[in-house]
């Protein structure tokens, strides 16, 4: 009975079931040595761009802060290598942002900077300051600065949801974190629970990762005498369940109201790798300079998870994985549902970058777009219950009032609409255009 009920609830919530393609899940993460050169964009998070703190020719060390901003809504950037700053160059990020990048040539010695010591934390304010210094942003893909998220401005948060859903196809980096750094995850939850006074923590994981679920369960049982409730929750696999508002809906049954933050309903969501990193930072003081990236796709010789220094050019990363098997037809930063297509492989790995996928010709096949047949699949599958087909029509006739009335800003750009469209229309792109049109109006430019 509960099976049927669950199925109905899922059907009502929309979403899709793309092929899992978790090819790399059984391969142990491999450490990649420091590359000869790292490129560090000053924008690796949502929020204000950082300003470079180093000059050309300056010597830098591992863990040294090289970029920061005075604004609260930002996160500092650290050097992953020791070496010399070769220059500060303009860089166009794949999402279209123009920023500066610090280019550092590595000396290969990986000498530590003096600032890398475990942080001393006594109060909540110390904790938030330490999280900011660590440079941590949401590692699941959004790149939201973690210290901003944790500093809830007096809003009472009772529940922490650890997002291990990893609903995107191909990506297994969070899955490997669950298997390889299980203790860190629980230590991280402990730290957050202590400083935020949480009542409960829920690790949410999809049922296509039974191995990780069992391991988490086993470790959770060993944790005794906790001051908060700890729960591992198995969710029925469904894309885009890993999106913040979706996972709150799936775990707590709460819909976060439009224009509000999860903290407004007493919930915080953190990515599982972010929590694991937090625990390691509190122990060692080593800021965010490396992360696990899934390298996969039909054009990669040796698909695997790689622990890579941030700033490593994608070309070097692919070289490390045996290079290209066949010439790549499409290169993606992130998963196939929400990832960004890259124009070249000189772009570096950035903080929120959980996967690099190199697609071969067949995977990158572009379909011809035909007329909308009004089938309503996009409406039925939309997880935020907007009407992509109607919004697309409003975008095409530039009807701004209707765009606002149709709540285009609710769109989480998950791509379910484009995925199910039998006419192969780029509906998700139309949603983005619709949002951009409203934003221009809000700024008074249209």
């Amino acid at each position: 009975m509960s099976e049927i009920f669950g199925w109905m609830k899922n059907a009502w919530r929309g979403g899709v079931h793309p092929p899992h393609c978790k090819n790399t899940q059984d391969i142990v993460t491999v450490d990649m040595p420091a590359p000869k050169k790292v490129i560090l964009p000053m924008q690796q998070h949502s929020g204000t761009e950082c300003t470079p703190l180093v000059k050309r020719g300056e010597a830098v060390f591992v863990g040294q802060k090289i970029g920061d901003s005075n604004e609260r809504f930002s996160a500092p950037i650290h050097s992953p290598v020791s070496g010399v700053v070769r220059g500060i160059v303009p860089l166009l990020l794949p999402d279209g942002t123009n920023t500066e990048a610090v280019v550092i040539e590595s000396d290969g010695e990986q000498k530590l900077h003096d600032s890398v010591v475990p942080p001393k934390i006594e109060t909540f304010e110390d904790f938030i300051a330490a999280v900011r210094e660590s440079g941590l942003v949401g590692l699941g893909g959004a790149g939201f600065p973690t210290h901003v998220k944790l500093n809830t401005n007096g809003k009472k948060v009772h529940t922490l949801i650890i997002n291990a859903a990893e609903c995107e196809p191909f990506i297994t980096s969070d899955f490997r974190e669950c298997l390889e750094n299980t203790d860190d995850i629980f230590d991280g939850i402990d730290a957050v629970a202590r400083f935020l006074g949480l009542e409960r923590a829920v690790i949410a994981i999809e049922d296509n990762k039974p191995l990780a679920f069992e391991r988490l369960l086993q470790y959770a049982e060993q944790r005794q005498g906790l001051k908060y409730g700890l729960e591992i929750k198995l969710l029925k696999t469904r894309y885009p369940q890993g999106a913040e508002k979706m996972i709150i809906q799936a775990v707590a049954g709460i819909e976060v109201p439009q224009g509000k933050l999860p903290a407004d309903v007493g919930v915080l969501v953190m990515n599982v790798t972010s929590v694991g990193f937090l625990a390691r930072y509190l122990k060692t003081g080593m800021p965010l300079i490396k992360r696990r990236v899934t390298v996969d796709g039909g054009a990669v010789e040796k698909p695997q998870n790689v622990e890579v220094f941030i700033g490593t050019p994608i070309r070097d990363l692919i070289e490390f994985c045996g290079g290209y098997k066949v010439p790549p037809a499409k290169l993606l930063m992130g998963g196939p549902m929400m990832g960004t297509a890259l124009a070249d492989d000189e772009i570096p790995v950035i903080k929120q970058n959980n996967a690099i996928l190199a697609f071969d010709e067949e995977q990158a096949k572009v379909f011809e777009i035909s007329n909308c047949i009004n089938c309503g699949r996009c409406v039925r599958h939309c997880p935020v219950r907007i009407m992509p087909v109607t919004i697309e029509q409003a975008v095409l006739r530039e009807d701004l009032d209707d765009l606002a009335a149709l709540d285009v800003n609710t769109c989480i750009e998950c791509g379910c609409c484009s995925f199910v469209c039998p006419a192969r229309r780029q509906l998700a792109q139309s949603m983005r255009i619709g949002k951009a049109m409203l934003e221009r109006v809000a700024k008074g430019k249209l």
Partner: protein
Amino acid sequence: MDKKLIVSPSPHFVGEESTADIMQDVIIALIPALFAATFYFGVRVPIIVAVCVISCVVSEWLCRIVMKRPNTVGDFSAVVTGMLLAFNLPVTIKLWMAALGSVIAIVVVKQMFGGIGHNFVNPAIAARIVLLVSFGPQMVRFTAPFTTGLVDGVTTATPLNLLQQGENMPPIIDLFLGEHGGSLGETCAAALLLGGLYLVVRRVITPTIPLAFMGSAALVSVLMGLNPLYQLLTGGLILGAVFMATDYATSPLTEKGKLIFGIGCGVITMVIRHYSNFPEGVSYAIILMNILTPHINNMTRTKSFGKKIKCGAKKY
């Protein structure tokens, strides 16, 4: 890199199902009714279906060439229109009339409005109504099952005529299995429902419109003091409810809209059958609701995620 990379917006995966797949599923769903019709009305059935399908496909192909648009014959929608139109014709129809109807359906109703997805009424129904108005006697000249050869058959009244004239009705089981006079594809309720079930299982359609259509028609007939089973199993009601009213382009997007649409179809059908001097009202009912579809869509917009929900630290 020596080779250029494809840069396109996300998602970079697409689902398996294309427009052509959906149309092929509809064709498969129509096949049981096609066999039933051939069984009851003989060899003229496949000939009429073939004439309609070929005229539809050829006129679509020529139309796209004349309009200098990319060719869309490959999406199989013209085949579906041809089959549905053929199912709505009497078995004695002259072949040139069937061909003319197909040309009207594709050229006037579908392509002149922009091709697939842009027609505002169902092409097959519109063509049927044009033929009915133009060639009245031939369009209502129905023959009894098992009497039709290549040339002609024994003319009979349809159960709907009998019902209107208060004469004796054939048994319910004959009506359900299709052994009675009528348009060639509409008589066998069993085959049509089987096709409908296939479409629901394959998730091509949701059952909302057929159930709302048939349910409201049955309810209204009870209120009118008629036998609901006779009303459901005669005329083109099941063909209309399962295959014509569920046409994507001319039916609403949301389930709520589909419910309103289906109920509208059922009520209008029964009103026409009971109060007007037409024996059949399914076609007119569907066309009327087709025209209302844009308004139903505007009335039944969805409420987006997290809209108008009270805020506060709620425990669960």
